[in-house]
């Protein structure tokens, strides 16, 4: 027993010296000597020579001038990479894809081939009938309570809009408390579904959209107001529009445009995805630089082609593009977007 205990401590001691001391130090020496770029995180230098990111880590891009990476469940936070962990049967997964598709969906056939779908979503939303029944927004909130609550908590301005509404309608709040004795002092998010039900009745064909206007002192002020057209409608109601139009021929969006990676930090997109975004990127640069969009497009197309790589030289997978490196090349070629 005692002998085994002392031998255990010796084994532990030798192992710690070997595996915590010698072994990592050897690798550290080799890495810092022969592969200093990789061993320090593959940090790229941006314009002005400052570190701009890691070639291996996705970072967010929202400007039209840049290619956008895949959606990130981690919000591109490289201290806390994470997946969405959404199962196939979780509506949140379908909803994320639908809200990303709505604003960019186009028809693939018929008289409107190539045209965007969103004007039709707006027209359908104005008519305010889903599956033959009136009140799209009320039906949306009833079917997806969590999305309605999510809208309220997404932004402080949303919550204060609902608070303002509930102060103006004490009778509805009282009725809610009577039906839900478990929540005697309902918060804005508790009232989300009730709020949308009444909103739908009071403002048919509209949604509480953010409107940003220059306020006093020139500082932009964001307020919420019922509106018949805003980005939220195209995004949030695309799935319901689709249920009403299941056979409308739509162009397929590249899978990686709407799916989140496991790390939330996938630095690449597929070549298909890049080409899908190409028109938006080229038009934005052409507008900024006041140049011919066709010419810019062919330049960027050539840049994409030269930067395409395939996993394992094509043995394991199809062509992909590193988003940060591509955007850095765009930035170096055309300057900073305004």
């Amino acid at each position, binding site marked *: 027993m005692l002998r085994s205990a002392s031998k*255990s401590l010796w084994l532990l001691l030798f192992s710690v010296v070997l595996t915590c001391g010698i072994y990592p130090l050897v690798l550290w020496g080799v890495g810092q000597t022969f*592969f200093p770029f990789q061993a320090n995180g593959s940090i790229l230098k941006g314009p002005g020579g400052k570190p701009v990111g890691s070639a291996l880590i996705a*970072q*967010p891009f929202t400007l039209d001038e840049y290619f956008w990476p895949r959606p990130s469940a981690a919000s591109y936070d490289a201290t806390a990479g994470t997946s969405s962990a959404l199962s*196939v049967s979780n509506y949140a997964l379908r909803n994320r894809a639908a809200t990303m598709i709505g604003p960019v969906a186009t028809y693939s056939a018929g008289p409107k081939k190539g045209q965007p779908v969103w004007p039709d979503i707006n027209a359908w939303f104005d008519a305010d009938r889903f599956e033959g029944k009136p009140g799209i927004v009320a039906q949306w909130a009833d079917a997806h309570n969590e999305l309605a609550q999510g809208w309220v908590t997404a932004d402080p301005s949303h919550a204060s809009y609902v608070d303002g509404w509930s102060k103006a309608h004490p009778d509805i709040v009282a009725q809610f408390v009577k039906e839900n004795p478990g929540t005697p002092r309902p918060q804005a998010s508790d009232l989300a579904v009730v709020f949308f039900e009444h909103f739908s009745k009071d403002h048919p064909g509209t949604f509480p959209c953010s409107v940003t206007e220059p306020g006093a002192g020139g500082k932009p002020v964001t307020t919420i107001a019922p509106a018949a057209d805003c980005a939220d409608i195209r995004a949030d109601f695309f799935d319901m529009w689709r249920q009403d139009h299941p056979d409308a021929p739509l162009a397929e969006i590249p*899978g*990686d445009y709407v*799916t989140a990676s496991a790390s939330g930090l996938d630095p690449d997109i597929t070549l298909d995805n890049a080409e899908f975004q190409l028109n938006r990127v080229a038009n934005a640069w052409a507008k900024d630089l006041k140049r011919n969009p066709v010419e810019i497009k062919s330049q960027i197309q050539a840049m994409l082609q030269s930067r395409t790589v395939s*996993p394992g030289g094509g043995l394991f997978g199809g062509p992909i593009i590193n988003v940060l490196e591509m955007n850095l090349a765009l930035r170096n070629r055309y300057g900073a977007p305004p």
Partner: protein
Amino acid sequence: MWTLPILLIVVTILISIPLSSYFASVMDGRLKGPRVIAWCQSRLDSGPQNWKQYAVAMLIFTGALFTYGYLVLCLQPIAPLNPLGRGILAPSTIFNTVISFMTNTNLQHYSGDQSLSNFSQIFFILPNMFLSASVGFCALTAIIRCFRGEPTVGNFFVDMWRVVVFIYLPAALIAGVVFIWQGMPMTFASQHSVATLQAGAMGLDSHGQAVPQHIIVGPVAATIPIKMLGTNGGGFYGMNSAHPLENPTAISNFETTFLMMIFPFTLVLMYGRMLRRVRHSVVIYGVMLAMMIGVIWWAINFDTLRPNPAFTGTPVAHAYHVADANAPGGSLAFTVPKVASLPVDQALGNLEGKELRFGTSAGAVFAAITTDVTCGAVNAEHDSLNPIASISPLVGMWLNCIFGGKGVGMINFLIFLIVGVFLAGQMVGRTPEYLGRKVGAREMKLAMVALLVHPLLILGPSGVFAATPWGTEAVANPGPHGFSEIVYQFSSSSANNGSAMDGLGTTYGLNNNPSPAPEAVPWDIATGLVMLFSRYLPILAPMAMAFYLGRKKPAPASLATMRDDTWTFGFLILGTILVIGALLFLPVAALGPLAEQFGPIPFGG
């Protein structure tokens, strides 16, 4: 698509053949090495041990490792190499983590990049990974020596030292250099902060300044080789081998997958070589390989070759009627409503939770292999696999002998072998034999103990957690998938695998975390205990069984002896494994993944 798994299997087979004879010579002590290593070995040698002394030494050493691990994790706040000022982990998480790494499970109820300092990564993770992987290796060696009929089974401490020094360390050094070349960080710094190319894309702070992107780095290339070689599987980063700095390219992914396969493959052949029954081990190898090819095919076929059903919708509504005596009319009706498809191009299969740089089928291949060899690293999100494809990793954990972990996979297979020859013996009315020795009642009892621990420790706690808020409050996905998450977590704990469906809320994090997962503490404790029991009982019982079997006199082979080196024998064992496995686990598979796949998608609002 198929190139990746084919290449992986072929390369692993080709390398495992010569490597197995090297392993045999290391374990038989024919390799001496430099003077300093021999000196250390002489310090460790406490003389020849019988199986009981060997097992006691193993348990005492485990106790020492447990204490050491606990101390290191508790020291994190005051230890060096902690520039980000990480505090102490929650007590229940320390308990869980210490057991998890000591038992070679590497279930992680914390996120390495968010909760551990580089001190803990080096002084806790590294020695645990080397040593826990060696324990199973040594246990198998002891069993082999029992079967050889040797009166003593060697010395535990000497065996451990040989495995670490002659097998793991050189392999890890070579693998680490390749990983660094591919882009894995190897630094003692903790974090880089960079100004994003699109200024302010990470948001603005309270002063209106653009928030930089912070990138966690560290001695990643030291952890990952042994994480894979030792089939440990505990990632430096929370997202494990999916994280771009933990698995930068398709080549590093190939290497990662290869490293977790190579030693389990090799050990089967080492078993044959050390027993001088190479043909017998080739049959075992073939059975394991057939099962592995099966689960890889299953995963690719249902995940890479099929779209994610979340987007495809349900073209036609289905109605099901289920007999129910209490319902009016004697049957209950369930409807799977019609759902329109979304216009998503899914030619590359289910891309949710997959990384693009590894290649098309890499996520599915990895998911299948990581549970076969009880590694538990992941390079894709198992929660987001197509439900029917997720049966593949589950089966790997349930059978737990498709090559299996270092040594213990072979030991688990041994149990099925004993049961298989017993069944065959019953069928022809002869006393069952293994390696020429008669299998008696005592050996069968020990084999059954080892066999039944695993399903009991999966199904029992899964039932308890599925029925209480411990489970229902922790699952992040609706309906049957929530059940799958619970079953997966306990399967992973009991198989000492360590992979997880990450939606399950089991992370407490640092002790001062203001908003931990609500049910993190019961999960920490329950899975901690499951890992402990399911690690040591299935090692100790087979060791005892091997001892009792080994001391019997081998009967000379006669015409009536069932030969154990034929393909007939292989089919017999394969059938035994599949029948026992299906009897034990088919019901939970039906309640979880199958119900999700064939039920309504989406499930609820």
